[in-house]
């Protein structure tokens, strides 16, 4: 493509099919904790 560059694998849909195991870190998003914003977490799989 000349006009468009896709930066990532865009695989969110695939992750839904296989995800939900619950092994990854709980992700408090509040300012008091800095445990996590969801999207910067690692998947454990």
């Amino acid at each position, binding site marked *: 493509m000349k006009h468009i560059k896709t930066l990532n694998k865009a695989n969110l849909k695939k*992750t839904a099919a296989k995800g939900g195991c619950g092994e990854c870190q709980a992700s408090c998003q509040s300012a008091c904790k800095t445990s996590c914003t969801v*999207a910067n977490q690692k998947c454990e799989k």
Partner: protein
Amino acid sequence: MIHRYSLNGYNIVLDVHSGGIHIIDDITYEVLGLVSPPMSSICSQRILDALGNRYSNQQIIEAYSELYELFEQDLLFSKDDYEQFANQMVASPVKAMCLNIAHDCNLRCEYCFASTGDFGQGRRLMDFETGKAAVDFLLEHSKGRKNLEMDFFGGEPLMNFDVVKQIVEYARSKEKEYNKNFRFTITTNGLLLTEDKMDYINKQMSNVVLSLDGRKEINDKLRKRVDGTGCYDTIVLKYKQLVDKRGHDNYYVRGTFTKHNLDFSKDVQHLNELGFDQLSVEPVVGDPSKGFAISKNDLPRIFDEYENLAQQIIESKQQGKGFNFFHFMLDLDQGPCAIKRLRGCGCGNEYVAVTPDGDIYPCHQFVGMEEWKMGTVYEGKLDFAKKDRFSKAHVYEKEKCKDCWAKFYCSGGCNANNFPLANK
């Protein structure tokens, strides 16, 4: 659904439901602004007319065709078919716990959500018996989950560090038998750090959060000791030592910004100049009547400041320095699965907080609100009606979240902050 914006010379398109991120050129950006789904394979006359004074038909059609190609591949305006997964993880085991090991603190930060440490419940320390019961509770209620998290929180956890150590040792002694892997974290204001404590933390804790707001005058204005003196000079040295000993890995220096420092990018920069490279500085949450509170009118200024910060990070990366700013970190390929993203924190469902007396609350922010109490670690029971309610707090249940482009990045935000605002 898509989200399209331009920043720092890039036109960026997020295709919300595939997670695709595309960089597009100017003409394509303009064409996309005129397109709505479902796309047809032929570029409409309306689009040609609208852009005809600046681009040739051939140019417009070429850009349109590339967009159409993405659409065909389900990478643009891709369908929202996630609601079917919303009930997965409803019956999750409890696998993460915040232990409020000390409802007491040696600082009197003005913006403290825990009423300067005691959560409005009187100053108290957790004893080992209660900590042990909490570990037992987690071992049992985590069922098949292997990775368990325990965060030592307060108040100030270093005020009760002997009990922290006892709890860590007890939990470790059970890992094999129960086939679990404990990950401990601690959040501290640093005042009581000693070399021994640093070594223990660095050995046992998978992450450590070190509170510091930035520039000395900013930090010391709100983060004060009981006698009113600021804590900056004492803690900076200790944090440096701890982080050096830790090999600069798995830690955060975290600050809070308030109305007093809406130019918080300077504080981030300052923390970096001190030698820290894992940084998090976040907006204060609290009583709107307080002088430090951020109001809606401050938002445009804050948005600009985040953009300034992004620019600073780019520049420092170009000079081969750079640092991580927590809220800018996104793993575009290997982030959490869509199911995890539907409900974020998991409070009251996968995650609970325990007070020094052993009472269980949905999370540390609910502590002290009697109506939210979910049980005690001694009884070993949990209020499943409450758990169920939290487990269903996902983005497809919240009208505004459902149709928001950021839903898979914010996951509906913080329940504790949302409840007071709900139905308003």
